[in-house]
């Protein structure tokens, strides 16, 4: 049954279109293994930085009616320890790994890329869009098409791995950013990162709930925003898209594919449906394919592209 979910992504065979995105259960090799065992076709590491980062103090997450707010603060053990975890994962699993990295300038991205080149990772993701480190680093790089172009071009020249660019939804025109990334040599676009940022207030104590005050929004409430941005981007670019944002059930994933995504990220849904969520959604996609008589993922139709 699940064979029908197999697909090729940039020449690499994947067992499911579902991707574990950066930041979810991915601190360690064993965390990555859990998603792979439970049906994720591709897993992504925590966004790694040159030096270890402890992240923000808590609360780092806040639950509300239709989603989650989070500000982890890019905690990670640093590129060297992070790659050790990834290599240990690859010793135990055939599941392709996206190595996500974060930096604030071209030089640091270059240095990170050189380390990743020596790892057993399959793809390199440039996280240009973390919304939760504003106090430290200011507006994300993904907000500037010139910065995006410069970084992607530099990294493309030295990267052994295909490059995925993670885009922010919190920009005026995502299409011009996406086009800049494509022009600079990006192999894949990944969108969307969390929305906002937003905030919640504790009314009894008159305090922001998150220690960082503001945090990125995820969960079912952001799906319509994600679909719109993926569709707009798909209409404009010629490289594959990993679509994500609020995917919780099989039909959400189908919508992402119809909007233009080749692979689909599932993150916050782990909170709603447990670590089994990947296989649950795999089964729901197959059920949809059966009902609609689609033999493979490639048979699922996409929307007609927007006119220029």
């Amino acid at each position, binding site marked *: 049954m699940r064979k029908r979910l197999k697909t090729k992504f940039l020449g690499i065979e994947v067992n499911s279109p579902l991707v574990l995105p950066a930041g979810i259960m991915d*601190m360690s090799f064993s*965390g990555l293994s859990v998603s792979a065992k439970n049906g994720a076709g591709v897993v992504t590491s925590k966004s790694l930085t040159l030096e270890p980062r402890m992240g923000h103090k*808590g609360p780092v*997450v806040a*639950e*509300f009616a239709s989603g989650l707010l989070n500000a982890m603060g890019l905690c990670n053990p640093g590129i060297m320890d992070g790659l050790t975890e990834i290599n240990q994962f690859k010793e135990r699993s055939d599941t392709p790994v996206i190595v996500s990295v974060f930096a604030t300038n071209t030089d640091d991205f270059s240095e990170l890329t050189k380390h990743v080149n020596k790892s057993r990772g399959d793809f390199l993701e440039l996280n240009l869009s973390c919304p939760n480190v504003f106090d430290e680093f200011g507006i994300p790089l993904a907000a500037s098409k010139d910065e995006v172009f410069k970084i992607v071009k530099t990294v493309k020249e030295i990267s052994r791995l295909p490059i995925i660019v993670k885009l922010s939804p919190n920009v005026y025109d995502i299409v011009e950013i996406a086009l800049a990334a494509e022009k600079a040599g990006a192999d894949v676009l990944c969108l969307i990162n969390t929305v906002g940022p937003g905030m919640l207030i504790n009314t*009894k*104590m008159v305090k*922001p709930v998150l*220690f960082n005050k503001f945090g990125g929004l995820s969960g079912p409430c952001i799906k319509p925003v994600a679909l719109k941005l993926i569709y707009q981007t798909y209409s404009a670019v010629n490289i594959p898209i990993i679509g994500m944002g609020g995917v919780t059930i099989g039909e959400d994933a189908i919508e992402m594919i119809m909007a233009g995504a080749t692979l689909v990220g599932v993150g916050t849904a782990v909170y709603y449906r447990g670590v089994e969520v990947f296989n649950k959604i795999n089964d729901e996609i197959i059920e949809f394919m059966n009902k609609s008589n689609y033999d493979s993922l490639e048979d699922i139709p996409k929307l007609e592209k927007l006119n220029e």
Partner: protein
Amino acid sequence: MNNRRTLKIAKIETETDDIKTYSFKYSLNAKPGQFIMLTDFEGGEKPFSISDCTEDVFSITVKRIGEFTSHLFQKRVGDYVSIRGAYGSSFFISKGKVLLVGGGYAVPTFYFLSKVLKENGTEVTLINGARTKDEHLFSKKFNGLGIKVINTTDDGSFGEKGTSVDVAKRMLNNQRENGKMFDFVYASGPEMMMKALQPLLDNVEYEFLLERYMKCAIGICGNCTMDPLGIRLCVEGPVLPKKLVEQLTEFGKYHRDASGKRIKY
């Protein structure tokens, strides 16, 4: 889904110079072994084991170990704090005759467990250990429960001299000779205490209450996963059964800090 509750501290008991018990009037419906996340929206947010829980009151027992707990120690009765939970797995409530092995500030969670076991008709023996008399916890509270308690300190300043594991070893050996083994063993204490206890428990089922650096407490951030199973200690733990503990290669070897970096014990 939002289970945050902002509550006034109803009672503060000073247990030792560095340990206080905070009680809240709230129907938490927690089970022994579970934990809450507590914050004041100023100093961070940390997990705390529940040391007692009745129909309308629950308590946590806190050791002052760092910035967060020092900040918490400034709070007074009537001050607000905000909690979420109860989270995580809970202890199996065994029948028959059970042994509880506790060490240091991880002992108070056994107060809640002992009460529930006692109500269940289980015969409870508790080894309550600490380094010194000054750090020994809850001896009066446990005496009030009508269970068998053996107090022990590393330096002999209170109860027997020796560690909890020394006493457990003697008791388990005696039992083996008599042919009357405990039906179940529970441990809560420093990880190296439980690591030392583990080889003594080949012939008996057990559960350990483990600690890892927790952040989200809802199973998504990955900071508290344990190798190589990827067990999320905030969801599948903090209480883990023998068959899982035996498979954890990191148990007693290393843990991860707030960055996810491995720190050796």
